[in-house]
């Protein structure tokens, strides 16, 4: 496939709402301003505090779950969509490495001491599960991973759901920091989450997103400021899209696995 022109078969969605959280950039307004040249906030909270969890669970929830819920809720609010009405796709490279480290360390010393709560939080769909429980969504939820290609694969799944008839779909990508001996093998830095509500019908004021699979570009694009800032996080391959959303009209390619890319074009039509 030639990447020079958008093919007629490109999948299309309206970007109705955006959520974002990284340390110092606690919402999409701050992230967009940073992408366009502003500074990050020194006094921003060190941890997201998703209001949809009961207070005790909000404190106890793994950081990865907290960031995923925070950005998912923010994207739904920005889209003025009822979260309970949306199907959802959650993408994370490593899930929660602090819990994986706890599970493996405990199994190596005293396996009968595993905490039941930590065990049920160890599933890769922990964030998706807490989301559907927290907002009361009985709609389908899924949890995916594909390393560098993760967000592109999640976007493909979200766009395919729209093509299959969903009115709107929530897509969230997130990863936390590496942890323990596992962190040396599966490196990741910081805490990062970003989410989109994608609608099937065009919407005034919402950028249109066109997507198609193609070859990798001949030369890598210069990183935007969001990507340059959080490039060490395992979910960083999604950031070129958020840099582009901040800038307006743009074309970019996200790694999609198998040596191919998901080409994305943003237009204000």
């Amino acid at each position, binding site marked *: 496939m030639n990447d020079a022109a958008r093919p007629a078969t490109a999948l299309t969605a309206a970007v109705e709402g955006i959520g974002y959280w990284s340390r110092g950039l606690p919402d999409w307004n701050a992230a967009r301003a940073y992408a366009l040249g502003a500074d990050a906030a020194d006094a921003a909270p060190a941890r997201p505090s998703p209001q949809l969890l009961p207070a005790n669970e909000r404190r106890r929830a793994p950081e990865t779950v907290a960031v995923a819920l925070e950005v998912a809720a923010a994207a739904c609010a920005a889209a003025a969509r009822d979260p309970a009405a949306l199907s959802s796709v959650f993408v994370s490279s490593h899930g929660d490495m602090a819990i994986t480290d706890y599970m493996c360390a405990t*199994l190596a010393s005293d396996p009968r001491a595993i905490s039941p709560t930590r065990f049920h939080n160890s599933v890769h769909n922990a964030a998706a599960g807490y989301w559907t429980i927290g907002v009361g969504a009985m709609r389908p939820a899924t949890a995916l991973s594909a390393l560098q290609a993760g967000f592109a694969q999640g976007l493909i799944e979200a766009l395919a759901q729209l093509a299959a008839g969903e009115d709107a779909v929530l897509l969230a990508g997130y990863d936390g920091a590496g942890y323990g001996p596992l962190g040396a093998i599966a490196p990741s830095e910081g805490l990062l989450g970003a989410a989109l509500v994608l609608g099937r019908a065009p919407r005034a004021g919402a950028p249109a997103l066109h997507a198609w699979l193609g070859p990798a570009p001949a030369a890598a694009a210069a990183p935007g400021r969001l990507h340059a800032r959080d490039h060490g996080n395992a979910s960083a391959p999604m950031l070129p899209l958020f840099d582009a959303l901040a800038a307006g009209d743009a074309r970019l390619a996200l790694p999609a696995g198998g040596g191919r890319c998901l080409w994305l074009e943003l237009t204000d039509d």
Partner: protein
Amino acid sequence: MPPLAIRAYTASTALGHGLSAQAAALRERRSGLRRNDFAALAADQAPLDCWIGRVDGIENSPLPAALAEWECRNNRLAWLSLNQDGVPAAIAAAVARYGADRIAVIVGTSTSSIGATEAAYARLHGEPPRFPDDLARPTLHTPHSPGAFVAAATGLRGPCVTVATACSSSAKVFAQAARLIAAGLADAALVGGVDTLCGSVLFGFNSLQLVSPDPCRPFDAQRTGLSLGEAGGFALLERCDADAGGLLLRGYGESSDAHHMSTPHPQGLGARLAMADALARAGVDAAAIGYLNLHGTATPANDEVEALAVAALFPPQLHASSTKGWTGHTLGAAGIVESAFALLALDSGELPGTLNSREPDPGNGPQIRFDNARAPIRYAMNNSFGFGGNNCSLVFARA
């Protein structure tokens, strides 16, 4: 939805490698469960007192040299499963028709290769502690290990993803494949799932007090919990003509319970939504389903709400059963394994009952059968429900 052709399918479980081993054991009501002999990694710790569905021969089936960097129990089971029942030939035929970059790889799992990560933690060395050299392979210590391995092992280069929604994982792969193909992003998809026994699974479910000390007895009034198993399976799906013969995927339904991370909705609302949605998408009436493979884990709560949901949707004539007494609960592989059992029922007319179970729970409807039966059927269904209240039901047909 447009039906998809199932060009090949396979499952490998405690009953043996491949479909003929599965079919024979199901017909002869021969369980694959054994007393737990899966060693704990912690020094001086006895194995849990329970029964497991362990796949024989994994220890003696190393990966080919070209795939050695992927070596671990989970990828071995994926490889062993992938090379059964004509799956490699079906993949080769699809590659010849469409090209490798038009065939998606969608693999479900709950634990991926975490057994290898557990083994690394049991052998940490140095300061700060680090993995032993032979296990310091990043491809293993990530949830995407099985999907990436299957793509590497088959050479398929279409969209590739690992789905991890606990025990619904390898049912949801069918739904994703149907959407990808319908959206024009692929012409065919290799779907499947693999999960292996490991400490996280055995001691994790033990911490939730869900593991039975005896072989599991789904839907029995005296059931005491689940037996854990390991398994792998795959299916090759392809777009087809409306009047195509053979075995077909006709519908899928997905839902969430929106209730609790590890206990199901008390009235089974999520389960009902998934089943009703699958029937609607298939355009098939509930009365047309000839066999339903239940999720049926044999935990008191899960079986109770599934029985409620089935009784609310289906007429008494339905033959519904849980096959966990044969294989144990194979977690992220349960979706593909039990889809294979539903396809076997369509192929052969042999309908499995529910092994080990003797005294029906008073909450069971007439649909839930303990004895095997024989009947030609046109439609079969499979239920897979996972942690986080994540549900998926599939409808298969024989054209």
